[in-house]
C-alpha cells in the first residue's frame, strides 16, 4: 500500500515532467523539437520546461514544509501559508523591492535575503505562541501575522508607482511565470537542502505523534527540533516566495492526501509529499494556463480557490480539537 502509493506518485511526477512541456496554448510536438523548429525549441526549453521545473520544486517544497509544520505543531491546519510564514516572507521581499533599490543595495541578492528574514520573523512569533497557547490560538496568531503582513504590503504598494504596484499585485497572487532557468537554479539548492534536512529529522518528527513527554523521555531534543524545523521551513519558504510569491494551500492539502496513502511515518510522508506536491502544483498550473487561455492565471489564485473550501472542511471535521 505504502510502496504502491509512492510508486504511483513517482510515476505521475515523471509523466508530468515528460508530457507537460508539450501542453499549452501553442501546439508543440516532439516532432517539432526533433525537426529543429526554432520557435518550438524556444517555447519548450525557455518557457515551459523552466516553469514546469519551478512548479515541481515549489509544490514539492511547500508540501514537505506543510507536512513538517502539521507534525511540529500537532495541528492538521498548520502550514507556512495559514501560519503567516509565507506572508512574512512576502512582506520581506516587498520591502526589499521597494526600498533596497532606493538605498543602493540593488545589486546584492537582497530580495531573497529579506524574504528569508521575513519568514523567520513570522515563524518566531508562531513558535512563541505555540509554546504557551492552545491550537486555536496558534491559528489565530497565524491569521494575525498574515493580516498584518498583507496590510503592510498594501501600505508599501500604496507608496509605489503604478507599474510597480501592478507587478507587486501580480506577484502576490503567486505565479510561476518565469523565462529561462535563473529562478529554477536559484531555488533548487535551497529546496534540495531543506528537504534533505527535514528527512534527516524524520524520526524526531515521528516521535511527536505520541506526545512531547514520551518523545523527550526517549531522547528527542524538542527545543532543538523546533528550532531546526522552523529554520529549515523559513529558509525554503523564503527562497521560494522571493521567486514565485506566496502560493497557498499546497502545503495544507497535499500532506493529508499523502498520509492517507502512506501512513504517518515521515520516512514515507516526506518523499510522498515532495512528489505529490510537485505533481499537484504542476497540474494546477497547467489548468491555470488553460482557464483563461491564452491569458495566464496565476496558479496561487487557483490553489486558493481549491484550498479555501478544503481548509473549511478540515476545520469543521476537527472542530478545533
Amino acid at each position, binding site marked *: 500500500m505504502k510502496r504502491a502509493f509512492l510508486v504511483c506518485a513517482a510515476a505521475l511526477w515523471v509523466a508530468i515532467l515528460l508530457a507537460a512541456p508539450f501542453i499549452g496554448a501553442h501546439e508543440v510536438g516532439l516532432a517539432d523539437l526533433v525537426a529543429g523548429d526554432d520557435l518550438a525549441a524556444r517555447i519548450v526549453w525557455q518557457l515551459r520546461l523552466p516553469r514546469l521545473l519551478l512548479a515541481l520544486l515549489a509544490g514539492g517544497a511547500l508540501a514537505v514544509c506543510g507536512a513538517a509544520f502539521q507534525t511540529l505543531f500537532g495541528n492538521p491546519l498548520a502550514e507556512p501559508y495559514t501560519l503567516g510564514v509565507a506572508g512574512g516572507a512576502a512582506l520581506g521581499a516587498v520591502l526589499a523591492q521597494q526600498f533596497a533599490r532606493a538605498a543602493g543595495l540593488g545589486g546584492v541578492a537582497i530580495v531573497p535575503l529579506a524574504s528569508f528574514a521575513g519568514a523567520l520573523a513570522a515563524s518566531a512569533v508562531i513558535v512563541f505562541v505555540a509554546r504557551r497557547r492552545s491550537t486555536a490560538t496558534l491559528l489565530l496568531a497565524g491569521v494575525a501575522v498574515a493580516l498584518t503582513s498583507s496590510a503592510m504590503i498594501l501600505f508599501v504598494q500604496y507608496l509605489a508607482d503604478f507599474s510597480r504596484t501592478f507587478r507587486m499585485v501580480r506577484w502576490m497572487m503567486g505565479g510561476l511565470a518565469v523565462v529561462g532557468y535563473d529562478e529554477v537554479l536559484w531555488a533548487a539548492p535551497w529546496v534540495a537542502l531543506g528537504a534533505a534536512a527535514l528527512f534527516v529529522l524524520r524520526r524526531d518528527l515521528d*516521535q511527536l505523534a*505520541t*506526545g512531547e513527554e514520551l518523545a*523527550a*523521555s526517549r*531522547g528527542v531534543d524538542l527545543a532543538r527540533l523546533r528550532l531546526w524545523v522552523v529554520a529549515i521551513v523559513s529558509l525554503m519558504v523564503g527562497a521560494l516566495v522571493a521567486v514565485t510569491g506566496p502560493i497557498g494551500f499546497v502545503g495544507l492539502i497535499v500532506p493529508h492526501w499523502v498520509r492517507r496513502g502512506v501512513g504517518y*511515518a515521515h520516512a514515507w510522508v516526506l518523499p510522498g509529499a515532495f512528489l505529490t506536491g510537485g505533481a499537484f502544483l504542476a497540474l494546477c498550473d497547467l489548468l491555470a494556463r488553460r482557464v483563461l487561455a491564452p491569458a495566464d492565471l496565476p496558479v496561487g489564485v487557483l490553489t486558493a480557490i481549491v484550498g479555501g473550501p478544503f481548509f473549511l472542511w478540515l476545520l469543521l471535521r476537527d472542530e478545533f480539537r
Partner: protein
Amino acid sequence: MTEWLGGTVSFEAGGRSILTDAEIAVGRGESVAIVGINGAGKTTLLRLLANVLAPSRGALALGGVPYADLGARRLARALAYVPQIRPARVPLSVRDVVLLGRYPHNRIWSVGYERRDFDAAARALEVIGSSELADRPMSELSGGERQGVYIAAALAQETECLILDEPTTYLDPGHQRQIARLLRKLTQEEGRTLVFASHDLNLAYALADRVIALAAGRVVATGPTLEVLERERLEALYGAPFHMLEPGAGAFSARPVAAVDLVGEALVAGDRDSR
C-alpha cells in the same frame, strides 16, 4: 541495597518550588513506589528521573555517571518512561506506537525500521499478551488496552528500568489487576527495575520493595514498603482514615490491603432505613 539510579534534586517552575532536595535512591532490580497527595511532586520526580525535565538544583546519576554526562540517547536505552497522560487520539496502529519505543536504538543511516526493531516490538506485545492487537488502530482500543500498549512501547525500548506514572489510574479493577500482574512479572521474572508513582496503595503493597513518601515536594518517609505504608503514616499523609486488612485476617492477599474510609460511617441498607 546499593544505589544504581538516584540523586538529590530540586525543581522550581515559575518561581514556585515543586521539589525541594528530594532524595531518591533505587537499587538495580528493585521496585520502588512513590506515594503522596495530589501536587506532592510525584510526577515531577518521575519526569526528572525520565530525563523529560532537568532539575533546577542537584543532579541524578545512573550507575554512578551523572545524567548530563550520559546524554539523552544512552539514558533512553537504560530508562523507559510511561507517562500518566497517554495520548488517546493517535492516528497510528498499535504496532506503530510500540515501534516508536525503538527511537534510542535507531541508526542514523537506516531509513525505516530494521528487523531487530520489528522483533523487539513483537516480543513486547507478546509480553503484555496483546499480539493480536498489533494491526488495530489505537483509537479503537479501550483504556486498559491502550495502557498496555504504552507499556509495550516502553518494553520495546529494551531498557533495564521502567518509570511509570499512575500505571493503573482510570482502569477498571480487572484491568488494574492485569497491569499489576504484568508489572510483577517484569520485576520478578525479568529482573527489571521499576519506579512508579501511584495513588493506588494496594499496587504499592503488591509490587514495591520500598516506598518513598512525598509531601509538599519533600521526602517525608522512605523505607521498606510495610514500614512506610502503615496506618498512622497513611492517615497523616492523606488526612483520611484508613482500614487495614492484614494478610491472613480474612484478606485475599499475602500482602496487606489498605482501604480508605470514604464517608466515615458504615452505610448499609438497614442504617439507611432507620434514619
